[in-house]
């Protein structure tokens, strides 16, 4: 390919300055400006104070419970999401379109409504809460409740990442494996799973990321006890209400940083997936 400047492409189509202008103005004012302000505020605090805020017992407890519950929620979605994606991609059955549509319920349902519904379901006398209580499991106002709310709100991620990849696996790949004498389990392990792995991991990372940031659904069901069932997002909110802005900035900036790390992981996984797809062509 000839070397030419990015701007040298002959532009037949109109509207570039207008479209780019609107895009940059909106992205700048709505997205970049507030995030920059947050980062500046966090830098304002100074390293020592930042470290003191982040390592205070209550903050550490909040981070621990948030990440642990997000891990549990992601583990649930790794199983349920994969099964759901498998069923939607591989089988035909009545009601499949409806099931496909239902997968989007956690995205379409506002988080406050989801939280209210889950709190009612898992209340001690609720549809799920009562039977669970009788076997000694309490979900509401415990970290388990946090995990439940996180799991619900992040259901679509694994499904929507894995489903298209599963649909794209050509039948002949599996047939070859069959003619070579492989069992179903062996074929799944050695042929199908490696093909979906990057998308599967990306879906899990997205679900984990969403779980860490979730707020609305959780506060209805968690009980929000400091050092027990208080998530990082809520602690940030509480610090704001106490006008403790340095603490709010420090915790929010840390949360933002972890979101960026996860976003990078997802992007790397997606690049890996694209390489995988490219090699297959």
């Amino acid at each position, binding site marked *: 390919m000839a070397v030419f400047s990015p701007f040298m492409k002959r532009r037949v189509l109109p509207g570039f300055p207008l479209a780019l202008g609107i895009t940059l103005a909106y992205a700048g004012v709505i997205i970049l400006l507030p995030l920059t302000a947050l980062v500046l505020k966090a830098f304002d605090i100074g390293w020592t104070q930042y470290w003191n805020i982040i390592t205070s017992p209550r903050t550490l407890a909040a981070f621990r419970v948030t990440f642990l519950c997000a891990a549990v929620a992601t583990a649930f979605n790794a199983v349920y999401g994969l*099964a759901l994606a498998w069923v939607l991609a591989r089988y035909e059955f009545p009601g499949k379109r409806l099931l496909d549509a239902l997968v989007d*319920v956690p995205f379409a349902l*506002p988080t406050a409504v989801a939280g209210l519904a889950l709190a009612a379901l898992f209340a001690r006398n609720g549809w799920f809460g009562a039977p669970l209580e009788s076997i000694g499991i309490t979900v509401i106002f415990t970290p388990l409740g946090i995990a439940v709310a996180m799991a619900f709100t992040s259901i679509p991620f694994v499904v929507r990442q894995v489903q298209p990849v599963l649909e794209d696996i050509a039948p002949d790949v599996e047939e070859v494996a069959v003619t070579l004498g492989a069992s179903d389990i062996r074929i799944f392990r050695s042929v199908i799973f490696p093909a979906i792995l990057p998308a599967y991991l990306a879906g899990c990372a997205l679900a984990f990321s969403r779980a860490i940031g979730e707020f609305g659904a959780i506060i209805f069901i968690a009980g929000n006890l400091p050092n027990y069932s208080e998530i990082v997002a809520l602690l*940030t909110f509480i610090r704001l209400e106490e006008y403790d802005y340095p603490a709010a900035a420090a915790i929010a900036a840390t949360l933002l940083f972890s979101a960026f790390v996860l976003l990078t992981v997802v992007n790397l996984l997606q690049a890996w997936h694209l390489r995988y797809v490219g090699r297959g062509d």
Partner: protein
Amino acid sequence: MDFKRLTPYRTPATHRVGDQPLTRALIIGAVLAATLFVLIAPLAIIFIEAFSAGWRTYVANLSDPTTQHAIFLTVLTALLVVPVNITFGIAAAWAVTRFRFPGKNLLITLIEIPFSVSPIIAGVAYLFVYGAQGLFGPLLDQLGVKIMFALPAIFLASMFVTAPFVARELIPLMQVQGADDEEAAISLGASGLRMFLSVTLPNIKWALLYGAILCNARVMGEFGAVSVVSGNIRGVTNTLPLQIELLYNDYNAAGAFAAATVLASLAVVTILVRLAVERFDDSRAEAKKRARPGH
């Protein structure tokens, strides 16, 4: 190679993993059973709880003045934010898919950031721009403009959390479609507006509708970001999701569930529209495939 030594090769019947009737029935059954608990029960309990005290109580709960105001404010926010988001989404998709410029990938990443950022972070970040302690706080105070804990903050925070919605639907579609049709229109002498209305818009209308519907659902349902920036003033800056929390904390569960049915119905409508759009879109994609083989 000595062909005579090969045993006769028989083509196997099409075999795919997990297609045995028993495996199939077990997997589908297990997933459907789990879905009943995981996805259907939460949706069902909202309506059941809301109507548990009878139709009349439900109507009384919904006609509570603060709930009414919350509904009004939520609709107002959507009416303002969704069109702005559509404009931004089209502009971003047009710039990104039709032109090459340095920093393009960075711009795409920037647009998608709100997806991976907790809404609470968004709220805090806005506070540090427009709040009393924020970058523009002193200036706004001098000018007597109130953004934080007032309606403008609700609009701004909603714009942040929904920024990627329309753009994300349009960018992959317009990338696949390419610029051939539009270039043809321009070279035949169409004006930019004419090209947009007669070529671009018809090509992207379903994706645009779907993106707008998703954006609308998110705006109306946004909780975390709005809860930080709105100040939660009852009957003034309380949107419907905040009103649900308020009623719930007031031990007015019936009122909370009644308010929740409005948003849950919105979710159901969103999903139904998605189903309809996909059906139309499928037939359109099929038609295109048949009309232009190899494209």
